[in-house]
């Protein structure tokens, strides 16, 4: 608590120039031009939000699906081995995942993108040049990073569903699938929501892997194929070479915004998990 408070204070003091110069418009101005000393955080907020949102969109159904498979369908031994491997995935350093992104994911995405454009090009989401790097790739790599969190926590909460409730539903003549949908998931819902928020927190703050594949271009494009930029990436990339106080303060201001968002998300996750524990 105290550390967070000091941190917030430090970030606020060291970004004072930016807040004084741009005020709240810093948050919704989309020009980031260190040469002309014009700073707006919107492209980075947008990039972080879109890449994290995309990551959750992909990782939540897959992660929860994996957890259901591990708890309800897989034989016990298989489930334990799978769970172990998935937990290992959480331990992979993000720079390694980033490398994998560059060497594996980017070529694959570059190969797939023309197809997406051809098939779904009427959607603004899938227009533009197939660079390979961009929001889509960042979202994919982030979904890979948060998948273990979602799967492991969802598995724990699904395992905690009382056997007696599942049996009650089965004894009424429910299939296993109906039992999952009507008993297990409603019971585990707060825990799964907590897992999603933890995953979101992780995705928002992730720096290295995203920096390596998002394209690092401060622009706001509707297309997922276009390169973007994230809050954490711009801080990591530009902090060392920020020559003016304004530039430095603006980067720290972005840090402050990121910290604020992360705190809110984590508090929400805590609240969700607390809700589950009180009910259990």
């Amino acid at each position, binding site marked *: 608590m105290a550390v967070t408070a000091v941190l917030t204070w430090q970030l606020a003091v060291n970004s004072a120039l930016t807040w004084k110069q741009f005020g709240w418009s810093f948050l919704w101005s989309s020009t980031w031009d260190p040469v002309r000393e014009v700073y707006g955080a919107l492209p980075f907020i947008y990039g972080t939000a879109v890449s994290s949102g995309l990551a959750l969109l992909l990782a939540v159904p897959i992660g929860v699906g994996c957890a259901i498979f591990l708890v309800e369908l897989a034989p*016990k031994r298989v489930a334990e081995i799978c769970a172990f491997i998935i937990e290992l995935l959480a331990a992979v350093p993000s720079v390694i995942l980033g490398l994998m992104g560059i060497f594996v994911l980017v070529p694959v995405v570059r190969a797939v993108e023309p197809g997406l454009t051809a098939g779904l090009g009427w959607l603004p989401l899938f227009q533009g040049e197939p660079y390979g790097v961009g929001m889509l790739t960042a979202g994919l790599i982030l979904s890979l990073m948060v998948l273990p969190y979602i799967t492991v926590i969802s598995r724990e909460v699904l395992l905690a569903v*009382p056997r*007696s*409730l599942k*049996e*009650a*539903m*089965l*004894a*009424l*003549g*429910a*299939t296993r699938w*109906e039992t999952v949908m*009507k*008993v297990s998931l*409603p*019971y585990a819902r707060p825990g799964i929501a907590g897992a999603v928020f933890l995953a979101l927190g992780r995705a928002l703050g992730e720096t290295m892997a995203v920096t390596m594949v998002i394209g690092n271009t401060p622009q706001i494009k509707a297309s997922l194929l276009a390169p973007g930029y994230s809050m954490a990436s711009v801080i990591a990339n530009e902090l060392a070479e920020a020559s003016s106080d304004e530039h430095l303060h603006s980067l720290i201001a972005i840090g402050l915004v990121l910290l604020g968002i992360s705190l809110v998300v984590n508090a929400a996750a805590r609240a969700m998990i607390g809700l589950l524990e009180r*009910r259990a």
Partner: protein
Amino acid sequence: MLTEKPPQHAAAPGTVVPERATLEVRGLAAGYGGPLVLRSVSLQILERQVTAIIGPSGCGKSTLIRCLNRMHEVLPGATLEGEILLDGRDVMGLDPVLLRRQVGMVFQRPNPFPSMSIFDNVAAGLVLNGVRDRALVAEKVEGSLRAAALWDEVKDKLKAPGVGLSGGQQQRLCIARALAVEPRALLLDEPCSALDPIATGRIEELLLEIKKTLTLCIVTHNMQQAARVSERTAFMLMGELVEVGPTDTIFTKPSDKKTEDYITGRFG
């Protein structure tokens, strides 16, 4: 319902209805991978009667009734041999999902669904059956709650969560839930073991009422309960069925020494 109903016996007053078995077990052996929990059990559960299964803890009573609606097989490592017949048909040839709609179950501890209201708990089985007509669902829910002697207590709070009721009310809610799908038979696995004597008494009254329309099989620790509610009693010991017969006979003139020892309290 989903399968054809067995022929109904038109019981004219005075005529003796031939006793027929709703459920029949022949040479049943069951276990959980280790040593067998049940060995060569054969038993008939007669139509519109209460059959009580008594015996000391761990004798296999619960396993036996869980075999009857194939709830045994949902436990890991479960094994089963022998024949189980529902109205003369082998249940192993039926879809377990359809079987369980015919042969309902009430468990040891009340287990209403925590995310559902009282109404939704009772309606759960109907929804599974695909009943979409709201008026029909409401009618069946009321009928089931009345049959479970719970309607008067909950009719003003059907939207309240089922877990907010007292233990005895929750168990009657679970009975109503099982009755709502109109099963042929209802299996009760020590339904009163978590309840106080007053709640137990209410459940027993209710069993005597519902046995007029369906076949009941109750596992119980409590011998007085078996004596109060059942027509026939089966005594089990160490995975075997020692003796089965009319309840009066079992409690007054058991033919097996082991039964006599148990019911006179010499062990168990």
